[in-house]
Every structure is written in C-alpha cells, then in structure tokens.
C-alpha cells in the first residue's frame, strides 16, 4: 500500500487504482502523471504502467480532469499562493515529498516567470535512511577540539549526497555520545526544500533538536543570515554552485563556522577544475572531502580525503 499522505494528493480515480496494487515495501520512487499518457510507477527495480479497472489489458490514461484535480489538491486549492513554486517547477507536500511539474513555460525578462497549462506531474517519494551516515561521523569529528571539520560531499547526481547530508545534520544535531561528540547547533539553508522537506514552513524530516532551517532561501544569502542571527556551530547547504555560494563559503569559514556541503562532480580531480573552487581548496576551506558513487547502491563511500588531498579512508 502506498503512503496515505501521497494518496491524499491524488485524484480519487487514481487513488482507487493505486489502492488496489500490492505493497511496494518502500521501493516506490516516483508516480508520474502525463496528460493522455499511461499512469506510470517507478520503483527501485524498474517501472511499469498501471492498468485500468475497466479493461484489464488496457493501461489507465491520465485525463486533463485528473491533472486539474491533482493540481488543486497539491496547491491546497490555492494556486494564487504558489507563484514561486510554479516558477521553480516543484511543490513540496506534507511528508516532505516533492512533486515536479512541467507544462508551458512563461518567460519574463528572459527568466522563467511561471509554468502554466501543466501537462506532467511527478510525485517523488522522499525516503529517509536514519543512520546511513553514522560511520562517517568519526572522520569529520575533530576529537581534539570537539568541533566538526568542514566537509564537502562530492558525487555525480543520484549517488545519495543529499540523503547522507541530511543524516549527518541529524547525527551532529543530536550528538554522538559514543564518539564524545556533543550535540551542535546546526543551521541549514534549504534552498529547494530538499533537506528538511518543509511543508507550510514545518520541516517534515527529522533534522535533529538543535537544527534551525531557513527554507526556500538562496544559499549565499542564507549562510550570511544564519551567521549573523543564529550563531550556528555548523552550517549545512546542498549543491554548492555559483560564485556567490563560494564567496559565502569563504565568509562562513572566516567566521569560524564549520560547513557541511555537497557538490556535483565526478571525482576529486574534476572538482579542482571547477572555476572558483581552486581558491576554496587553496585556502583549505574544507578539511574533509567525501567521494560517493553507486557501485554498491546509492550512498557508497568511494574515498575520504583530507585538506591536503591525502586519503583518510578508502572503500
């Protein structure tokens, strides 16, 4: 049976179809609704189209009415309040799940102003893996000072960076008594609501008791805001990218705050080639680099380097 929270955001016709399917036991990744196309489910083992109840051999085709109803449910009948979400191309729902949307893009000043005439919806099911990063804490914990090393998680997309970062935040916020790590004040800048999965401002994932979250806030501005107002011991951000992010990282490091961040890169050497990052590497802004891949499933640790590029741990 699919999580009731997600079913609540689907039209009754689709809800009934999905309720008749066998349990996915946490393997369901996505539910895709495309207008005039079959209802598609994607699981960890593959994908399939859902059959209609009318004719067992027919697949169920999504109608305009299905999409309109789904959109009303997703926006809580408040499309007028969703301009930012329609600009970004996703809506976060209760439970921290995210629904991506595509349709007709309306441009204003060469920027995406709105997505109208929605034609596809992608319900992406958020899954938490509490404890997945437990083995990493000892490598980023400085036993001498009791602090956390600024750490960068590196991997190509879909290798589990965000999942591991989310768990690291939680573990550091709670503290790890077996390692002598006391709980730290963590500030999270969650630009795309991926870490906290905030719904109506309330985080839907457990990021720990000492965590403050700035939801929907640009990373660079958010990091500086947190430093000024929340006195965090650790700041966590997902997917560093532009020059502004890099400058904000420099400021945070100079302010004595530890950073936990992720970045898209194939390996450590390709990171060195990225513009702006050489400066960060030279100033040793990050003390630990964790490389991830999918060789043994999502979140496989390939290697951990220190600030000099020496291997601290290798799989």
């Amino acid at each position, binding site marked *: 049976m699919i999580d009731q929270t997600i079913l*609540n955001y689907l039209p009754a016709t689709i809800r009934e179809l999905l309720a008749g399917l066998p349990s996915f036991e946490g393997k369901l990744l996505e539910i895709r609704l495309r207008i005039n196309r079959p209802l598609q489910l994607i699981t960890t083992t593959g994908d399939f189209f859902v059959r209609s109840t009318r004719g067992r051999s027919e697949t169920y085709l999504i109608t305009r009415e299905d999409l*309109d*109803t789904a*959109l*009303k*449910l997703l*926006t*809580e*009948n*408040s*499309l*007028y*309040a969703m*301009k930012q979400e*329609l600009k970004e191309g996703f809506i976060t729902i209760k439970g921290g799940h995210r629904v991506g949307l595509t349709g007709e893009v309306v441009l204003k000043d060469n920027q995406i102003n*709105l997505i109208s005439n929605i034609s596809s919806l992608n319900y992406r099911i958020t899954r938490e893996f509490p404890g997945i990063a437990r083995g990493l804490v000892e490598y980023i914990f400085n036993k001498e000072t009791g602090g956390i090393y600024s750490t960068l998680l590196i991997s190509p997309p879909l290798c589990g960076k965000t999942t591991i970062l989310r768990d690291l935040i939680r573990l550091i916020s709670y503290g790890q008594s077996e390692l002598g790590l006391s709980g730290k004040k963590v500030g999270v800048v969650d630009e795309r609501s991926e870490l906290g999965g905030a719904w*109506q401002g309330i985080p839907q994932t457990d990021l720990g008791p000492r965590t403050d979250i700035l939801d929907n806030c640009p990373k660079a501005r958010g990091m500086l805001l947190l430093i000024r107002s929340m006195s965090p011991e650790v700041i966590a951000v997902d997917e560093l990218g532009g020059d502004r992010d890099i400058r904000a990282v420099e400021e945070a490091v100079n302010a004595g705050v530890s950073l936990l961040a992720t970045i898209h890169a194939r390996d450590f050497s390709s990171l060195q080639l990225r513009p702006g990052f050489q400066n960060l590497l030279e100033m040793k802004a990050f003390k630990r680099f964790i490389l991830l891949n999918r060789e043994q499933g999502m979140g496989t640790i390939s290697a951990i380097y220190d600030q000099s590029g020496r291997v601290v741990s290798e799989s």
Partner: protein
Amino acid sequence: MKILGICLILFSGIVLGRLQAQYYLTRVRVLKELQLAFGMLDTEICYTQTLLAQALSRVAARTEGPASRLFAVTARSLMGNGEREFNKLWSRVLMGEAGSLCLRKGDCRLLEDWGKSLGHCPLSEQHKFNQLLLEQLSLKEKEARELAGKRVKLSHYSGVLLALLVIIFLY
C-alpha cells in the same frame, strides 16, 4: 374563550408577517456581511497569499453571523479528511447553509460560480474574480434593499390582514 381565540389568531398573523418581513431584512444584512467577508478574503489572498483553508478560517474568526458560519464550516471541512476539492465542497456547504443565509437562488449561484474560479488561476486573475463577486454582491444588496423597502411593510400588513380574514371566516 372566543376572545382568547381571536387574540391567538391575531398574534399568529402578526408573527407570520414579521417573519416574512424578517426574511427580506436578513437577506440585505447577509449580503452586506458577505461583501465584508469576501473583501477580507480578497485581502488574505492578494496581500498575504494565505492558503485558502487558513484564509477562510481567519475571515470567519473576524466576522459574525451566517456569512461567518459559512466560511467557518468550509474551512473546517477543507482541513478535515473528507472532500478536499474546493468547488465541490463549497457547493455542498452552500446548499447546507442556504436556509440560514436567507439568500435567493440567484445569489447562491453567484457564490457557487465564484467557487469554481478558485484553485486554477494565478493571483492577478483570482483578484479579478474576487472583485467581480464583490461588485455583483453589491448590486444584489442594492436590489435586496429596494425589495425590502417595498415588502417589509406589506408583509406586516398582510400578516394582520390574513389573521383578520381568518377571524371573520371562523366567527
């Protein structure tokens, strides 16, 4: 005994007349309250962009009378586990509250049509729909006020006259 019966019939006629007059007066009051409530709702939607259920609930808390109840019942239902599509729910609630609202079919149709506009248009269009509803309600109120001016006294008199007619017929 006869006098007591006459008094009773006369009293009933007066009450009936008053009830009929009250209907016209209540309709004017409700239309006015609805304008106030929808004005507040428009502010919640346009300036604070509050989600609909919360917006309805806030407006209900700040207003009184049948309009307030209409908003409160809708907000409660939207936040509950039943129907979550606003236009369907709104029609159902309107039908349930129609009696206490003292509105005519045309008035209810206006409100129902407005409900259909919610949920699928962006902010600027939603504001236009809200403004249109407010103007239509204002016209309806004017019309209801004129009607009340004509019919309130008439209802009072007809109540008394009806009672007198019954008395003459019986005795």
